[in-house]
């Protein structure tokens, strides 16, 4: 199979714009979901059902005055949100959006880069995302920003461990770190969630913590830390921070669906003869799963209150990491017994 540069560039542009659009409309969905869960209606003045609300918000962000505090480290201050945004967008490179499409005898992969350490790449990029928050908080030269950044980064680093450990059992089962391989092994209804429910629970909890979402949204805290690491930010720099959070949610949802819920696989996919048709339906199935998980993120956010900071650390280090380790051991034992 030959790989054409044009295909890849085309795919990159599509994935880039799709993740931006989904993140854009996540902001509206968040407000709509929160409103509906609280028996309200939500934004409905800008366009039908408020569909132009994200556009209005974006325009507002761009036209606001962009303030760089006098005492801030200018270079780091600008670097912070850029790193956050870039790392958030980079992760989507290894996600397999579908199988293959065949155009006039040429097979085109629906994955930008099927690297053999796909999941490791995701973790590496997500870890760089912590720098975005840390640098932004440090560069603001404000005690609230610094404390917020400290909180955010210690939380993200702690939960990264449990997250990585929860993935190891999947890697053990699959025998591969490539996301493409992991997804293609969950053919049909053979999804990993049925083998690794505990792993999913740990991964899901850690994904919430990684995205700084409720119940782990401690970096932002009006009572103690004002706005947390983005206290000093304004205009589109603040927009980038907030926006990268939504892209992270989208990417986490995509990875959760790919790792545990079969990605583009859907039941009875062998009954469709045309491979192109399977691929197209697969993309839709994948996006349906992703959108469900984005909704799930919002659903959880508007249901449960946040943890206290010591509870957060206790949960991460004392419960989730041992649980993930036990999960690895049990997976190994079961694999040995059944000689898989």
């Amino acid at each position, binding site marked *: 199979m030959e790989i054409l540069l044009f295909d890849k560039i085309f795919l990159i542009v599509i994935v880039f714009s799709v993740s931006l659009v989904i993140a854009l409309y996540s902001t509206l969905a968040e407000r709509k979901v929160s409103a509906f869960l*609280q028996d*309200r209606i939500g934004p409905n003045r800008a366009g039908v059902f408020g569909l132009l609300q994200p556009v209005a918000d974006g325009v507002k962000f761009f036209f606001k005055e962009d303030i760089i505090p006098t005492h801030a480290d200018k270079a780091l201050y600008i670097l912070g949100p850029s790193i956050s945004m870039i790392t958030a967008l980079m992760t989507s490179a290894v996600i397999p959006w579908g199988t293959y499409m065949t155009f006039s005898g040429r097979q085109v992969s629906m994955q930008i880069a099927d690297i053999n350490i796909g999941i490791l790449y995701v973790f590496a990029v997500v870890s760089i995302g912590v720098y975005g928050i840390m640098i932004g908080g440090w560069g603001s030269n404000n005690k609230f920003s610094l404390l917020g950044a400290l909180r955010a980064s210690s939380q993200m680093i702690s939960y990264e461990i449990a997250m990585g450990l929860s993935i190891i059992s999947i890697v053990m089962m699959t025998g591969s770190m490539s996301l493409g391989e992991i997804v293609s092994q969950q053919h049909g209804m053979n999804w990993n969630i049925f083998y690794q429910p505990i792993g999913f629970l740990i991964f899901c909890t850690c994904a919430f913590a990684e995205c700084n979402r409720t119940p782990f949204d401690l970096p932002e805290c009006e009572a103690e830390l004002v706005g947390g690491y983005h206290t000093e930010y304004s205009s589109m720099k603040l927009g980038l921070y907030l926006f990268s959070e939504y892209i992270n949610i989208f990417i986490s949802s995509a990875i959760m669906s790919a790792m545990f819920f079969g990605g583009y696989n859907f039941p009875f996919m062998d009954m469709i003869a045309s491979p192109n048709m399977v691929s197209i339906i697969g993309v839709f199935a994948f996006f349906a799963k992703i959108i469900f998980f984005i909704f799930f993120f919002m659903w959880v956010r508007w249901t449960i209150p946040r943890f206290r900071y010591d509870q957060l650390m206790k949960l991460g280090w004392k419960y989730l990491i041992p649980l993930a380790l036990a999960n690895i051991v049990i997976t190994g034992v079961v694999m040995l017994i059944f000689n898989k």
Partner: protein
Amino acid sequence: MQLLTNRSKVVVNKKMTLMEKLYIPAIFGGMMITIKHLFRKKVTIQYPEQTREFSKVYRGKHILKRDEQGRENCTACGLCAVSCPAEAITMVAAERKKGEEHLYREEKYASTYEINMLRCIFCGLCEEACPKDAIYLTEELMPANYDRSNFIYGKDKLVQPLGTSAHPKTYKPYKK
């Protein structure tokens, strides 16, 4: 201490059981509650297009009624001013002259009638005290103003405009 209601619960600072420590059943229960609200009827009233309906006994701005022939009902007896707990009402009585029969129903009328809307508590006692069916509290809201002196409403603002009937929006007696 005697309890006023039986709704109070004694809070116990007990250790959490394993099931409670897992959080997951509680979180699941909470999420089931919120998902029910997703499909519930929304309580929002979309204000400029829709307005909340007033209570049937809403007491707003006062009106001094005219009768069917357009004559003022008020005879300046002063019972409303006496009954007013906020002492908001003042009036000056005058005698009806010849040729004014089409303006005032009885021989005596109020030449000035003022209600200080900053003092008024909208209790509706003036309406109850009135023996001549002259003063009522309507559904109209009191508009805001920049000047305190503009809150003293005279006859120009209180008397029912000529040619209007007992319209429910401007005149809605709740006692019969």
